[in-house]
């Protein structure tokens, strides 16, 4: 643990334990974010037909692209989540997680603005009556978590 590195991170004030604490926080965030994606993907991979209906309710894309997304996205979520947890291909996984969170946030914001009154559908049928505002706030927090992890890769 170099003192110069510590000073860089604390604006010149040395905090000897900070890099270690940051690493622990980073590990916790990485496992939590990855685990959440595995869970979200698994709940939707269980019933892709229902997920296709959830996608359709956003009224953003036609049925066929939505149905294709309903069979593909859950597996992508499982894959990127698992890879982030086990720290293999984790840069690519984190990049995709960030992109997915941005796309999901856009869809949720759009549904909120249009007043569709639908549920997120983020976790299949695991959580009902979620609306779109709470999931949007949660997604923004997850994006902040992903941003924090990116800082560790610099």
């Amino acid at each position, binding site marked *: 643990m170099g003192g110069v590195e510590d000073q860089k991170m604390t604006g010149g004030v040395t905090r000897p334990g900070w890099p270690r604490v940051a690493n622990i926080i980073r590990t916790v965030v990485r496992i939590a974010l990855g685990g959440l994606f595995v869970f979200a993907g698994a709940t939707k991979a269980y019933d*892709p037909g*229902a997920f296709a209906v959830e996608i359709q309710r956003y009224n953003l894309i036609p049925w066929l692209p939505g149905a294709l997304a309903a*069979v593909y996205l859950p597996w992508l979520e499982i894959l990127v989540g698992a890879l982030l947890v086990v720290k293999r291909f984790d*840069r*690519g996984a984190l990049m995709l997680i960030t992109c997915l969170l941005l796309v999901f946030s856009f869809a949720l914001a759009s549904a909120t603005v249009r007043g569709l*009154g639908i549920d997120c559908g983020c976790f299949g049928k695991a959580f009902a009556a979620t609306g779109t505002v709470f999931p949007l706030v949660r997604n923004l927090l997850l994006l902040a978590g992903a941003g924090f992890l990116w800082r560790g*890769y610099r």
Partner: protein
Amino acid sequence: MLRDGRAIRQALLILVSALIPAGLTAAFHPQRPAWTEETLAPGEERLPTVLAWGESVLWVDARSADEYRADHVPGAILLNLESWDELLPNFLDQWSPDKKVVVYCSAATCELSHEVAERLRKSGITSVFVLKGGWEAWKTRK
């Protein structure tokens, strides 16, 4: 992030890898989505849409009284063509203009629900819909 060549290469590999389980899902999953959307007749709605309406729905059971007594959608009102005049007052008691009326009958004879819906519309009731798939759709809901 977008200038990280290693991350981009890994991301592309992951995107391609996910196609394998997705392809298997599309081919073999028992609950895979239909690839063509079922078309709705005028005035019809699918169950997920109706369920999303929540408390604003007033269910109308257009089947026979015996079928209604055997089982029905919770809160549904019996209103069929056989006993229209007797059953209509009970419907009107529970209806209000802010309600969305959703009529269903058994899937095999679902013309009945269209006829009941049409008669309600002619009586001046707005927001009347027919449940696509009828009682069968409700029974097999997930």
